[in-house]
């Protein structure tokens, strides 16, 4: 069952139980009080009546003695006079019944027959009175019985009070209450239902939004309707959805990049392989022809070299990718010198001059990676240069204890629209040129990865056919 229905049913049922219980309690309490009052009235009326009759009788008896008239029989007196006493009561409600000690009815004006036994008549002592309420036909009647003593003769006077009125009142109240209850129940149910439904709509919206997002629409957001707890929950939910969207986008970008990388890699692997396999096949299946023979072997060698260089670059990339930098504090000047030494054969072969100037400074670095970085940058510059050009490798301190590694060349440069692409794996500014240089287009991708590991910055300024300046800014010891 849904929460809002649960809330509805709980509230509704709780209200109904409490409302009914308190109403019935009130009705019953009221009725009981009325009943007690009526019984009290009956008891006192019976008492007054008995006293009146006894007083009158003793008066008449005295009068008779004074006048010496014959004594009246009390039974006859009661028969003749009882009805007069009733005049002061409401005749529709009140009746009396008088019986003598032999249980013979002396007088009654009660019209209904009364079923025996009559426990109220069995009085224990002369002072006591007893009462009982019993139903006779459709009526409820109070019987109050007490002794009546006239000149030594015992009678029993029963005061009979019709209580049907208060029973009917009670029933009328109950009927009324039920009618009211039905109306209240309907109004309450409708009111509660719509109110709770309205108040919980934000929960339902949240649910449907969660489903939408779960189904893959990560841009979807919850409409925050209120400032209450659910509103807060919705806000938090939106933050979560945002985080998920970002993550998903990042994953998608990473997947696309990886896909593109593989795409290029396959291309870079297949092209030299096609040549190598093709020329080898040509050589083994055709008759010897000197020109074709040397040409083919030359291609096989060059394309093999190209594959080798690609393999080395890929290994560098894997090394950088898997590396958790193991930083040590090293003298940068030394690294520069080692790099220059490493590049020497290539520089000589291409007749390119390398000028080096470095401020000595001890820097936190992963030595091998910085060396790969420097060789890659110089390698790129050599490939861009022609014989007789110069390359400058500079190192100097700058503000905030940072250190700048700068490589400048006079090479072909990079056109403005290509600059954003140079960090892409397998991107090469001049494809035919890089093929003759065995370039794979991975150098700057590796460099930018190394710079990222050192939390540094990489800047490129370049103009086509003028040259390129690449600056690496590394954080110093202070940071």
């Amino acid at each position: 069952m849904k929460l809002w229905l649960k809330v509805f049913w709980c509230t509704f049922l709780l209200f109904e139980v409490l409302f009914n219980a308190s109403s019935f309690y009130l009705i019953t309490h009221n009725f009981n009080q009325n009943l007690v009052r009526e019984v009290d009235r009956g008891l006192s009326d019976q008492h007054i009546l008995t006293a009146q009759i006894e007083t009158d009788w003793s008066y008449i008896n005295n009068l008779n003695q004074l006048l010496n008239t014959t004594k009246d029989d009390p039974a006859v007196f009661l028969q003749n006079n009882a009805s007069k006493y009733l005049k002061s009561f409401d005749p529709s409600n009140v009746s009396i019944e008088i019986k003598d000690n032999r249980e013979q009815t002396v007088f009654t004006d009660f019209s209904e027959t009364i079923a025996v036994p009559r426990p109220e008549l069995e009085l224990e002592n002369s002072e006591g009175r007893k009462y009982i309420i019993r139903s006779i036909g459709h009526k409820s009647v109070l019987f109050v019985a007490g002794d009546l003593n006239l000149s030594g003769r015992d009678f029993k006077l029963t005061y009979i009070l019709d209580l049907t009125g208060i029973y009917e009142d009670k029933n009328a109240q109950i009927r009324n209450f039920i009618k009211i209850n039905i109306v209240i129940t309907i109004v309450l149910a409708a009111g509660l239902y719509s109110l709770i439904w309205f108040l919980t709509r934000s929960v339902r919206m949240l649910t449907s939004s969660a489903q939408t997002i779960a189904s893959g629409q990560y841009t979807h957001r919850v409409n925050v309707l209120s400032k209450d707890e659910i509103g807060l929950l919705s806000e938090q939910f939106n933050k979560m959805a945002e985080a998920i969207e970002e993550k998903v986008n990042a994953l998608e970008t990473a997947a696309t990049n990886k896909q593109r990388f593989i795409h290029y890699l396959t291309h870079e692997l297949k092209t030299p392989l096609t040549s190598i396999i093709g020329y080898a096949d040509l050589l083994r299946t055709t008759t010897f022809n000197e020109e074709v023979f040397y040409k083919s072997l030359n291609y096989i060698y060059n394309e093999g070299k190209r594959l080798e260089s690609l393999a080395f670059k890929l290994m560098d990339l894997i090394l950088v990718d898997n590396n958790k930098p193991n930083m040590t504090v090293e003298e940068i000047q030394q690294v520069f010198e080692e790099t220059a030494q490493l590049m020497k054969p290539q520089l000589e072969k291409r007749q390119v001059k390398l000028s080096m100037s470095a401020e000595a400074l001890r820097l936190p670095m992963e030595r091998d990676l910085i060396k790969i970085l420097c060789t890659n940058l110089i390698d790129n510059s050599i490939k861009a240069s022609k014989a007789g050009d110069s390359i400058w490798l500079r190192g100097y301190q700058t503000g905030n204890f940072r250190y700048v590694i700068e490589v400048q060349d006079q090479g072909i440069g990079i056109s403005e629209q290509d600059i954003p692409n140079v960090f892409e794996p397998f991107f090469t500014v001049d494809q035919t040129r890089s093929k003759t240089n065995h370039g794979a287009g991975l150098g700057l991708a590796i460099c930018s990865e190394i710079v990222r590991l050192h939390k540094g910055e990489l800047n490129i300024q370049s103009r086509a056919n003028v040259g390129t300046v690449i600056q690496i800014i590394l954080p110093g010891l202070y940071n």
Partner: protein
Amino acid sequence: MEKIIIIEDDPAISDLIRLNLELAGYECQQAYSGQDAHSVLTDFTPDLVLLDISLPDVEGYELLERFKNIEIPVIFLTARNALVDKVKGLKMGADDYIVKPFEAMELLARIEAVLRRYGRKSERMDYGGLEIHLEERAVKRDGVIVELTMKEYELLLLLINNRNKALSREKILELVWSYEYSGETRTVDIHIQKLRKKLGWEDRIKTVYKFGYRLEVLL
């Protein structure tokens, strides 16, 4: 002599294709970029185009249109193996699609199939004193029909199309009998013997030691 233009930016691959095609008797021109292709095409009308998809200046797809307009068949050469690339190339009207790295024999077979489809392969082939009528599948020497079985005929065509190249027994088995090598290469030897005898080509069809056979070109 069918003419073929090779539009491929990698000189190694371009040369490789040229060498193979020339061995098979095609006339070739090479172009290394889109622009290059345009200048070559001013005084060269090819019967077929071999087109690399990724050229330095244009995408191969862009050149395709030009050749389609003058009804020259185009075979794409590419390192892209993705299905979408294949479908795109074929949908745009390429006649075939070859993925690098490819084998020379496969390339030749596909070129031949495309040329035949376009009717650019001449119906009659003259080679080494033989007239081969492709439509009738008949071989004549000095106007007299040489009786060849179906397999012998196909074997002969294979040798002529790959003349000057050694064909392994396995490859012959695969291409003529169209099943993969399963150890039984004697069939090939027997058919070669019969062919040699029927054509009097004992010297022409050379045995390549531990490999297969080669049809020597006539000088």
